[in-house]
């Protein structure tokens, strides 16, 4: 089953076109990283999925049910779908006058979770996000990191099939980030789908199976991280750093070569030329001592794409 289908979604705020015919498909069981620069339309997409903003055109399917078509939400289907979705917003505060237990208790009530199960789930989640010791402390006294943890816990209270996270790791310390990634991995292991927007590309790279890149309200790229890198390398060229045992004359080489000092060279070629490179160096009576293929990070690819 496809968990999220978005077709030709258009959303305009006054004179700003936030979504410009967005198309998106998120299959079940994947961790999908939704990338884009600020103002690209990431949050608007997520808010549209949840019926919190009203797109003008397009179609949205959630968990196999069509919840939005041509400017109108099917409220009944949307509410049914939301019962199986967990959402963690960006920049949200929780009700400051409540404790974590009270917060999760009231949110569990929105899903009509039976009392015994609710209590078990609350204890489990508070333990998981590391808030067990402050379970009866008012949220108003929490640090940003603690609030983020509670936001994650509330998103998981209904054991959702689809977890939507909007910039979830913003404000977390390194320990928190590591724990957060672990939670995402556990969700994937349990067969859940995670739709996850972020601008911290290293996080996306580590936990996501597939990424989609949105720029100016349009999805300009959607693939597995491996395929994206391969494609990027194909277009931008392979960069190989080599070190030889003696100087090499590159005048007859068909690649772009930059000497880096000593017997170190940077070679840029359109394809993977590692074997040819060995042969070329050997033809000059030299030997390659070290060879390093420089893989682009997702960040480099992203910046290139956004440019």
């Amino acid at each position, binding site marked *: 089953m496809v968990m999220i289908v978005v077709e030709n979604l258009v959303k305009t705020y006054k004179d700003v076109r936030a979504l410009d015919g967005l198309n998106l498909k998120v299959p079940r069981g994947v961790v999908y990283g939704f990338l884009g620069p600020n103002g690209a339309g990431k949050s608007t997409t997520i*808010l549209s999925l949840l019926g919190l903003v009203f797109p003008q055109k397009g179609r949205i399917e959630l968990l196999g049910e069509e919840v939005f078509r041509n400017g109108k939400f099917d409220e009944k289907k949307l509410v049914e779908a939301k019962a199986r979705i967990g959402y963690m917003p960006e*920049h949200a505060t929780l009700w400051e006058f409540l404790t974590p237990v009270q917060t999760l208790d009231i*949110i569990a009530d929105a899903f009509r979770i039976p009392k015994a199960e609710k209590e078990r789930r609350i204890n489990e989640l508070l333990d998981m996000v590391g808030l067990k010791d402050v379970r009866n402390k008012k949220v108003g006294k929490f640090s940003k990191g603690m609030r983020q943890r509670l936001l994650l816990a509330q998103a998981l209270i209904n054991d959702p099939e689809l977890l939507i996270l909007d910039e979830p790791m913003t404000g977390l310390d390194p320990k928190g980030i590591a724990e957060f990634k672990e939670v995402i991995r556990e969700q994937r292991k349990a067969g859940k789908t995670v739709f996850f927007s972020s601008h911290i590309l290293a996080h996306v790279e580590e936990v996501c199976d597939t990424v989609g890149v949105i720029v100016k309200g349009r999805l300009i790229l959607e693939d597995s991280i491996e395929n994206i890198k391969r494609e990027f390398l194909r277009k931008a060229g392979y960069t190989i750093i080599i070190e030889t045992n003696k100087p090499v004359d590159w005048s007859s080489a068909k690649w772009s070569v930059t000497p880096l000092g000593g017997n170190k060279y940077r070679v840029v070629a359109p394809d993977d030329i590692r074997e040819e490179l060995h042969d070329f160096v050997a033809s000059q009576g030299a030997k390659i001592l070290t060879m390093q293929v420089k893989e682009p990070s997702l960040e480099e690819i992203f910046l290139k794409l956004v440019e």
Partner: protein
Amino acid sequence: MLWGFKLEFMKGIRTKKLWAVMVIIIALYIPDFYYMKRVGVTNELQAIAEIINFSSKTALFFLGILAIIFGAGAINKEIEDGTIRIALSKSVTRLGYIVGKYLGHIVVFGLALLITSFVTLAGLQWVGVSVSKITSDVFLLNLLLLLVMLEFLAIGYIISTFIRSSGTSLGVALGVFFLLYIFIPSFVAYRMSTNIPSNLTVTEYNNYKAEYYTKYLFYSPNAQFIVILDAVNNYKKVTKTIEINGGTHKFPQYIPEYAGIKNAIKKRSINVLLLVVMTLVYLGIATWRFLRMDLR
């Protein structure tokens, strides 16, 4: 619907909204009780007249402001904080949420006024007034105050759904309040005074005023409240004879006879109905807007 109600009710209790309403009313009543004790009010009719006088002036003003301010931040403040995005990302409809929220406010205000009624009765007993005959009137008076508060609250909800910034909406709410509470009623009262027939009895004057206010101030909760309370007394005409310079002159005089809040409600049922209907109209406008607004 019940979920939105539960959330708002918890908020009302835990954010001390309930206590704020109560403390304000009680703090306002205390000087009144002292005044009654000092001048020696022991008659229950005098006491209820004093309470009504206080309600229609001081309490009405402060509770009206409080209600419109609570309403003006009801939705947009939650959008600013992001709590509404959490709430409505759950298995909850928008309609259920706003109606539940409003019901939560009704219960919180209702509870505050109920407790205030008991405090009022206790205060009157402390003054030395026997409250057995006026107990129901104290409760009915607070019920009318509740209706006024709920209408102001619904007006606040409209402001909250049309103005995104909670700071701006607070200013607009105060502007709207003074418009509805002072400026428009003053203008209507002035227009009425220029059209009013002469030689009316007090009862005729009150009826004329009620008709005028019903027609031109149907949207103003405080104006309707005043019109209703104008009917708590019946006026008996007596002729007074006064001797001036050796001659006798006869003057008509109107003696108020307390008829009770129940009687006023019966007499001004249209105005009570207006309080309810206009609340529903305002709430309907706010709901209409809320069902269409982007919550980003």
